[in-house]
């Protein structure tokens, strides 16, 4: 793949640069993709710490058996809201932040195609996050019984029984869903229409490809989630019986609808990361991306497969044998395109000239740890063995390897990789390395013991546990606190980099390839006023 622009690339140095307007109004009304990208990323970082604080409270409670810090009701609220915040308010906005910043730069577009929708898409998020967490605060004033207490999966009939926190969560999900769909439409339209002349779809950077598939998945599945939670709402308040067997409904229907969204959601979170990893690996291996086409086809294959495997999330619900077999074998098939990605990542490194700056370290950490998520996922696909793993800490460990090591560490890879481009300054390598090693070690300290807890028989979502689980829980809590507090290094490093530091060159890293590295660091307010021509 060659994305080297021809000579007349049009950066708008000097003329046409609009002066930045300061103040709140600029951020409220901005339609600039970089401003909006920055807001997405900042919002994601804040919510990352909010969701993290919640789970540290949970881990503190689980440090020792017995109830020390909180009652089970509050515990149940924390675990559910932690998940919703991390998925919808941290990981997804972070990915959208990348899309906003990077897609126009990488495809040679001046901005996103639909700037006002872009602005709206972002500003829907803070109210949605507020709705999600407001019941905690209301409960302090004696209003209601706290936030949603059903876990993020909102399984009926528990969620039909729940308090007003469930209603808040339902409306929050609706607003988040609207925001995601608006963002997705914008990304699809941008990629289809604003590519630089000569950039055919098969020359599109992999990051944009990853996001393109994510956007289609969002548009396909968010409405199903919205439908499911609306049915839940009418069951709760308007006398429908969708999920009540006594009224002719079926509680398992909710699980089918939820996971029809829920499984693709995993890939929605991960596809943008899988898109950015090859760029980073290629840059620091000083070697072009291996298997570009294979990766594109794998993205598409994973996107398609993701919507036909959902029932592996509830193998213990008592599905008929043919369904069990179908969902087992179809799930196993996902290992194939995923293996293609791993193969290509390693092959990109092979016989390169690697150096290990912070983004490369995070990329390597991502590949190894996400590899463990993939391998344990393969095991979980086995219906027979799943009967033991399901609902246990084994699953908790598995999806944190997928979504922390795969998701969050992937986001950090991207942030460290592109931050110098965005700010025009280099961040501190020393702090970056400290952040990486502390994160990797404490992450494993937190979640490795959880695999063993699950195997030994500890169910998830319990506020108190039997005495054979004491040691691993204590280790896990210590790890979680180190993990949580090491992320402050990241926040500090980013902040310092925004404020100043060594000037970054346009290319930033020695081995970078692609359009965005032809722009200045930081890029001008409007990136490509004259589109570059790709040969």
């Amino acid at each position, binding site marked *: *793949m060659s994305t080297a622009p021809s000579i007349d690339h049009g950066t708008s140095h000097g003329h046409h640069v609009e002066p930045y307007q300061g103040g709140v109004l600029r951020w409220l009304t901005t339609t600039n993709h970089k401003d909006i990208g920055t807001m997405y990323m900042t919002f994601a970082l804040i919510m990352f710490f909010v969701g993290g604080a919640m789970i540290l409270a949970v881990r503190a409670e689980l440090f020792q058996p*017995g109830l020390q810090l909180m009652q*089970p*009701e509050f515990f*149940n609220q924390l675990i559910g809201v932690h998940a919703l915040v991390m998925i919808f308010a941290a990981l997804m906005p972070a990915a959208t932040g990348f899309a906003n910043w990077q897609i126009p730069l990488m495809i040679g577009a001046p901005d996103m195609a639909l700037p006002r929708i872009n602005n709206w898409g972002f500003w829907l998020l803070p109210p949605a996050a507020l709705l999600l967490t407001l019941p905690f605060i209301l409960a302090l004033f004696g209003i*209601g019984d706290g936030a949603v*207490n059903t876990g993020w999966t909102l*399984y009926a*009939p*528990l969620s039909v029984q729940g*308090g007003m926190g469930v209603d808040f969560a339902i409306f929050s999900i609706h607003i988040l869903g609207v925001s995601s769909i608006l963002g997705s439409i914008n990304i699809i339209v941008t990629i289809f229409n604003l590519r630089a002349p000569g950039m055919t779809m098969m020359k599109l950077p992999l990051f944009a490809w990853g996001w393109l598939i994510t956007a289609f998945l969002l548009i396909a599945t968010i409405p199903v989630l919205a439908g499911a939670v609306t049915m839940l709402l009418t069951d709760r308040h308007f006398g429908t019986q969708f999920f009540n*067997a006594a009224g002719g409904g*079926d*509680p398992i229907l909710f699980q089918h609808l939820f996971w029809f969204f829920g499984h693709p959601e995993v890939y929605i979170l991960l596809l943008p990361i899988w898109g950015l990893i090859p760029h980073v690996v290629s840059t620091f*291996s000083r*070697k072009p991306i*291996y298997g*570009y086409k294979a990766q594109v086809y794998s993205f598409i294959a994973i996107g398609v497969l993701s919507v036909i495997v959902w029932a592996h999330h*509830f193998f*213990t*619900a*008592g599905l008929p044998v043919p369904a*069990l*077999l179908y969902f087992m*074998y179809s799930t*196993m098939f996902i*290992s*194939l395109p995923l*293996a293609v990605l791993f193969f290509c990542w*390693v092959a990109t490194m*092979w*016989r*390169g*000239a*690697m*150096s*290990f700056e912070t983004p490369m370290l995070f990329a*390597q950490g991502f*590949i*190894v740890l996400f590899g463990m998520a993939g391998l344990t996922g*393969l*095991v979980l696909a*086995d*219906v*027979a*063995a799943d*009967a*033991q793993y*399901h*609902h246990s800490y084994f699953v908790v460990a598995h999806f944190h390897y997928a979504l922390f090591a795969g998701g969050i560490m992937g986001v950090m890879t991207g942030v460290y990789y592109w931050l110098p481009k965005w700010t025009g300054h280099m961040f501190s390598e*020393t702090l970056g*390395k400290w952040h990486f090693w502390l994160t990797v*070690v404490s992450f494993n300290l937190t979640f490795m013991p959880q*695999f063993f807890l699950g*195997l*030994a028989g500890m169910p998830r*979502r*319990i506020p*108190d546990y*039997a005495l054979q689980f004491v040691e691993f829980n204590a280790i896990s809590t210590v790890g979680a606190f180190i993990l949580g507090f090491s992320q402050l290094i990241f926040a500090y490093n980013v902040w310092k980099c925004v404020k100043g530091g060594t000037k970054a060159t346009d290319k930033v890293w020695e081995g970078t390839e692609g359009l965005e590295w032809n722009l200045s660091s930081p890029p001008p307010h409007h990136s490509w006023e004259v589109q570059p021509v790709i040969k």
Partner: protein
Amino acid sequence: MKILRRFCLWAGISFLGLLLAVVPSLARADYSWNFPRPVTPIARDTLEIHNHFMIVITVLFLVVFGIMVYSMLKHRKSVGHQPARFTGPTGTVQWLWALVPFAILLFIDYILMGIPAYHAVLDMEDTRTKADMVLKVTGMQWKWQYEYPESGIKYLSTTSTPRDQITNKEAKGEHYLLEVDNPVVLPVGKKVRVLLTSTDVIHTWWVPQFGVKRDAIPGFLRETWLKIEEPGIYRGQCAELCGKDHGFMPVVVHAVPENEYLAWVDQKKTQLAAAAVGSDKTWSKDELLAAGKDIYAKQCAACHQPEGQGLAPVFPALAGSKIVTGPLLSAEGKLLKDSHVDRVLNGKEGTAMQAFKNTLTDAELAAVITFERNSFGNKKGDLIQPAQIKSLR
């Protein structure tokens, strides 16, 4: 910088070493790191499949990341390695190299793992063939009801861990949180068909040593089976988030030889018959209050709290409650809608308050209702007899 780099290298190597040490131990039959010792055919199958799986994925992990680590060490800029420029396989040999891993993966997925999984699933779901007996398990917030349809035995099983142990006022016992008042008793060597359902939300019945985990879904019957191979006491708990006391819903199974099981059945029948007789006799108020106190502690205190103060805003207080201190029955001795007796017998739709007429005997219902009306500062002074409850059913 050099020191840091060296530190990072060694940290990375020792981390991988740690993985090497830890991951294979998963596959060893060392049970503190693995499933608990299996005691049913399903659990043995499951453990075997799991162990094979762990070996396969450990090998995969080592091969893939061994190659990666080799590359990281050899193909570094700092050792002067010059980057190649290839972007895909060229020529037959390279294509073969690229495709062989995927052929191996397909083999692992669908032959090595897929075939044993197929047989295990069929075996797991074969609940009907040659079942010797049926156990019906009903999940309810937050206890289990066990029913032996052939013997007509039916009883509740709730946690017996004292509250003071949970709140750290007392030292925790050996089986903290995994102990119940009335365990399930099952004969060893018999195929037990287990039917599951629920009265309120979804629960999951799980005993790790049986390799059996199945959801109990309100309004539907689900089934699974077990054949316990050796006598013993097996412990597990609810595995699906089911509300406040999800973590306090243990399962305890006593597996005993068949003769002991039959003796237990006889004893349990006599015990339940004795309790049923209680519904015909007339009880004194003190008898009702004493019995009611026990039942309240087991069945009601989790939500309404030991002193009847409730847990605002979800679980209403009984102390001074309008419903509890309202009239007992209508003048004709009929059930009043939304009265105290109605609530206890029929529950309240859409809440955790269940219909206790399905789970408690006439005497137990009469006792607990009488107790609630005359405790926590409620001074109604009235009482209800088991015979009256019987006529209201």
